[in-house]
């Protein structure tokens, strides 16, 4: 279980997260929704240890260190939005980069096979530069790369950014598939409706504070959420 207790993040005078408490049960998908600048990405980056924070973040009962390599080794990986794939490396090298904390050649090969079976498209493009791929393919690569460190918790940032609605549905279905294989997922998503549909629980962040939480269904049916994040006509 991922547990955040009284987590605060500040950048100079701006407080990005204020006393955030949050729990993600094992093998569930939790969606984090909120407007731009609500602190969603800051929360993921705090868990990944790349922004300084105060408070406690623990995974499976153990406090997470603040050092990014140690966090990845502890089984917590982040999938940044698709534009953050290494476009100067090939698809294959991107996957190798994802396996950076893993020293065993055999396990790396096995994981690459696993990613290729999940995303056959990546296998076709293995030796192609990641910069030449389409938005959807990059997103798949970003997720595949995130799986290379054999994480038990995957933090996914804006997987639908720049994707068409059809591709968004496809990517979210893939995330669901990853989750069914036993990986816990904390998902940050602009598209509140679609992410809440696949999430077991959801949290709503506003100005760096958790203002509401509940199961995906509850939040989808909440009138305040509907108005603020889903759009009255429902075409979020």
């Amino acid at each position, binding site marked *: 279980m991922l547990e955040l207790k009284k987590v605060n993040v500040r950048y100079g005078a701006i407080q990005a997260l204020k006393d955030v408490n949050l729990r993600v049960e094992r093998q569930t998908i939790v969606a984090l929704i909120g407007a731009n600048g609500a602190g969603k990405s800051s929360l993921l980056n705090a868990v990944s240890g790349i922004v300084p924070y105060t408070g406690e973040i623990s995974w499976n009962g153990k406090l997470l260190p603040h050092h990014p*390599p140690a966090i990845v080794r502890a089984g917590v990986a*982040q999938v940044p939005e698709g534009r953050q*794939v*290494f476009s*100067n*490396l090939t698809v294959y090298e991107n996957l190798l*980069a*994802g396996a*950076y*904390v893993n020293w065993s050649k055999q396990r790396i090969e096995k994981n690459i096979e696993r990613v290729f079976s999940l995303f056959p498209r990546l296998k076709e493009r293995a030796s192609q530069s990641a910069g030449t791929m389409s938005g959807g393919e990059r997103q798949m690569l970003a997720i595949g790369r995130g799986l290379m460190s054999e994480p038990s918790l995957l933090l996914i940032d804006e997987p639908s950014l720049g994707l068409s609605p059809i591709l968004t549905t496809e990517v979210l279905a893939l995330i669901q598939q990853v989750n069914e294989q036993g990986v816990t997922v904390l998902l940050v998503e602009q598209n509140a409706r679609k992410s809440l549909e696949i999430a077991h629980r959801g949290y709503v962040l506003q100005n760096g504070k958790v203002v509401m939480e509940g199961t995906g269904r509850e939040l989808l049916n909440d009138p305040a959420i509907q108005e603020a994040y889903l759009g009255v006509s429902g075409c979020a």
Partner: protein
Amino acid sequence: MLFQQIVNGISVGSMYALLAVGFSLVYNILGIANFSHGAMIALGAFFSYWIARYLAVPVPVAILASIAFTGLSSALVELVTLRILRKRGQGSLYFFIASLTVFNLVTAVLVYISRGNIVSYPRAFLSGTFTIGNLYIPWIDAGMLLISIVCLAVLSYVMFKTRFGLAVRAASFSIKAAQLMGMDIDAIIQGVFFVSGTLAGVTGALLGVKYAVYPYIGNFVYMALFACVVGGLGNLTGAVLGGLLIGLLETLVSAYISSAISPALTFAFLVVILLLRPQGLAGRATEEKI
């Protein structure tokens, strides 16, 4: 005569190429010019001279030891300046000034120690010439070319075949994404400074052998900068090409016009490149505009 000058230009250019590559490695990760590179050139020349002189070891051994020293010095500069600034969230901008000051400081210290004297190695190293057809090729020129080819081969092996190289290339694209892969960014940056320091050390030592050892030898770092712009800033292949081209240009201008005017023509050449092909000779278009 022309061919003679071309040989000379290529060997000098190969040194600029090594400098430019070392310079680009740091630039690619930090997005900033690291002027302490110039300090490492000077230290490379002086360390190898001192070791050869006072420890009475053969010059090649002295050069190897000095390369290790400059690598470590470069890593040390990273540790005491950039690391502290980065931890405070004030990375690149202030490091630019800090690196400039380190360069000035090291030059001043060397001026003080050497009392401004220009010195040469106690024993001849790579002296004399050999002939191919009617070309007289100084051994030092052949040596410089050969050593830089070896260095570039080793570097490209490290960059493309090792875990460290993968991490460096990943971090050059995005430090944040590299960290998310579990890469220890502090260690990677320090490693890059070490590698770049060794390249500056090799060059400094060899330029010291070819010309002389003097405190302002670090000014060759400007040649590295020009080479980077000519080849395309941030492009390692371009840096090599740019280095060779600048070396050739400088040598030919010195031979046929005047050695004192060659920096002015280098500037003119740079202006022409910036006007016509700002992305550099080897760079791709569009990405260098603001």
